[in-house]
């Protein structure tokens, strides 16, 4: 039985990222405040990727229930719950399906607080998995986070590990604003220490590795590719700083600029397509706010601007990986390309 609402400072737990999210939801459900989680197959089935496993058994349909095969209806219903005092959580089965609910998200959820002069708040968390690199094809593999950082009124989180997923979900479930909570399926099984009761604030980046020669700002799954690239480059005497923004709205530009001022070389890495992606925004901000510290153009490490293929070999060519990060740092520092 989960001990919900445990105070900070408790012993560390070893959890997978999926279990960490489950635990944060569990604690919120157990707290007794009005809350409801809706989504396809998240009830008795425990979710397509198993994140809500066991929660329906404990809390039942009153708290967690299957939604229809219609994201617009589910999100619309959840917004109704949220503005009437019930904290709402929605799971959209694949990030790619968010389009069906788009008007509800960007025109309704994001605008109601503003539109009503602050009379309404929309405490809504939309959980949705990125299913990148799993051979699921062009309609089930996309990373669409940049769409949402573009919309004022939305917050966007992309945890890269169990502790951040748990801590950010705790913060999300206390927030009064609509939040996109983007989970990476390939990271669900990643295990790590989680401190019960410890929240992670939105808008605070994490420096995962310190370095002096170049900075890599990486999102979600690319955080781990960037860390692997940093290991590779360290063997060649190149020291790379790796930063995970954790939330892209709000965005902790301070930490990124402080790193740029130190290393003067910066790359951004994400699974999303290159054009109009998160990396474009970071590049623009670095130019605007850190121009005098740029020793080379900001590098974008991103998926090619083509639909994501199903075929594994073609898919591998489209997605960036640790080698792409290494190559970007080589370009930043004008290094000789290492033999591979």
């Amino acid at each position, binding site marked *: 039985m989960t001990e919900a609402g445990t105070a900070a400072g408790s012993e560390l737990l070893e959890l997978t990222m999926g279990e960490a999210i489950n635990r944060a939801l569990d604690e919120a459900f157990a707290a007794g405040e009005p809350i409801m989680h809706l989504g396809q197959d998240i009830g008795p089935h425990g979710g397509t990727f198993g994140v809500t496993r066991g929660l329906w058994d404990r809390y039942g349909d009153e708290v967690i229930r299957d939604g229809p095969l219609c994201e617009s209806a589910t999100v619309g219903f959840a917004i109704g719950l949220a503005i009437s005092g019930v904290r709402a959580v929605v799971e959209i089965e694949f990030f790619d399906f968010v389009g069906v609910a788009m008007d509800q998200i960007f025109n309704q959820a994001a605008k109601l607080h503003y539109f009503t002069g602050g009379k309404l708040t929309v405490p809504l968390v939309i959980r949705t998995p990125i299913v990148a690199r799993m051979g699921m094809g062009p309609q089930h593999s996309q990373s669409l986070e940049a769409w949402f950082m573009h919309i004022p009124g939305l917050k966007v989180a992309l945890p890269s590990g169990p502790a951040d997923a748990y801590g950010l979900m705790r913060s999300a479930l206390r927030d009064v604003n609509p939040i996109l909570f983007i989970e990476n399926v390939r990271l669900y099984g990643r295990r790590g220490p989680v401190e019960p009761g410890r929240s992670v604030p939105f808008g605070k980046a994490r420096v995962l590795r310190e370095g002096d020669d170049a900075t890599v700002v990486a999102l979600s799954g690319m955080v781990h590719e960037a860390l692997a690239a940093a290991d590779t480059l360290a063997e060649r005497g190149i020291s790379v700083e790796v930063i995970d923004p954790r939330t892209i709205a709000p965005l902790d530009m301070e930490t990124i600029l402080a790193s740029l001022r130190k290393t*003067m070389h910066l790359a951004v890495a994400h699974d999303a397509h290159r054009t109009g992606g998160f990396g474009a925004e970071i590049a623009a901000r670095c130019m605007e706010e850190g121009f*005098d510290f740029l*020793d080379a153009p900001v590098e974008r490490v991103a998926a090619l601007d083509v639909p994501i293929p199903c075929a594994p070999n073609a898919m591998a060519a489209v997605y960036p990986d640790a080698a792409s990060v290494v190559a970007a740092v080589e370009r930043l520092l004008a290094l000789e390309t290492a033999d591979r």
Partner: protein
Amino acid sequence: MVAVTLPQLSLSMEEGKVLRWLVGDGDRVEAGQPIVEIETDKATIEVEAPEQGVIRLVAAEGAMLAVETTLAEIAPTAAGEPAPSRAAAAPPANANGGRPVASPAARRLAAERGIDLSTIRGSGPGGRIVARDLERLAPAPASSPAERPGLREAVTANIVASWQRIPHIQIGGELAAEGLAEARRRASLPSGEKVTVTDLLILAAVRALADVPELNGAAGRRAERVHLSLAVATQDGVVAPVIRDAGELSLAQVTRERARLVGAAREGALDPHDLAGGTFTLSNLGAYPVDFFSPVVSGPQVAMLATGRLAEKPVAIDGMLAIRHRLWANVAIDHRAADGETGARFLAALERRLEELPNRI
């Protein structure tokens, strides 16, 4: 109105003290004219007028202000006609097509260290000058206390400003230096301290300035006393500590003060006070096989004397060849404050003062 703000002279600088106004409220100032002395924790520098016009002083002497605080406002001279902004006055980036290709970071470092990018070969893609090219050229002095980078940056900032703003003239000649050689042979101090050629040059230069006071001064004002800045090479670059009231000192006192300042400069232990207030600079490279060089006047001073090696040379005297000690001396002058003839008179005075040294030490 053009605002003159307190510049950030080093990365660590957050505030500065308004030491002294060099112009009065309502004065007409020229672009590039030093208008105020600012003291930072590292050094004392002068801020120059960015535009010509009539100045209104905003900050009070003695005030400690944050960087970017407005110090004064300058109303452009031609009433109703907006003064050209600095950006507008600057030539377009690629006006001559010869602008070096450099990263923004490299440009910032070059500006901070007073390095001319056109002298550097870039190692980046397509020959772009990148930060590491500047690091190779002039490594940031990171070895010692936080103090050093600030000092060095202040010094280089002054070199850059001087080079860019002061119209230089250079007047030089080979001087008779038998007296200097003789004085060096004879000079010995009871304490056993070593008298150097530099000490004797200081003595002679200070006396020559008494003869030609036009070259002793700062900020367009002739100074009554000679505070002699002595260029000293250190591992972090050149600094110029000041021998105060050099005209009042005996050879022994000059020797002692010179030894103290050179020692402190090389140890990076100079007090900001040691660097402030010079009215004339001597740069002596006579320890090297150097005869002639043309220095950059250290603004707001008016002139700098550059001396080469003291050497025996064949000279014609009354139709006969003889071997005599000679010394090249070159004086760089801010042409706005003095002209070539003044420099020539100074060299003549210096030669005379060198020759009489044996009788006056």
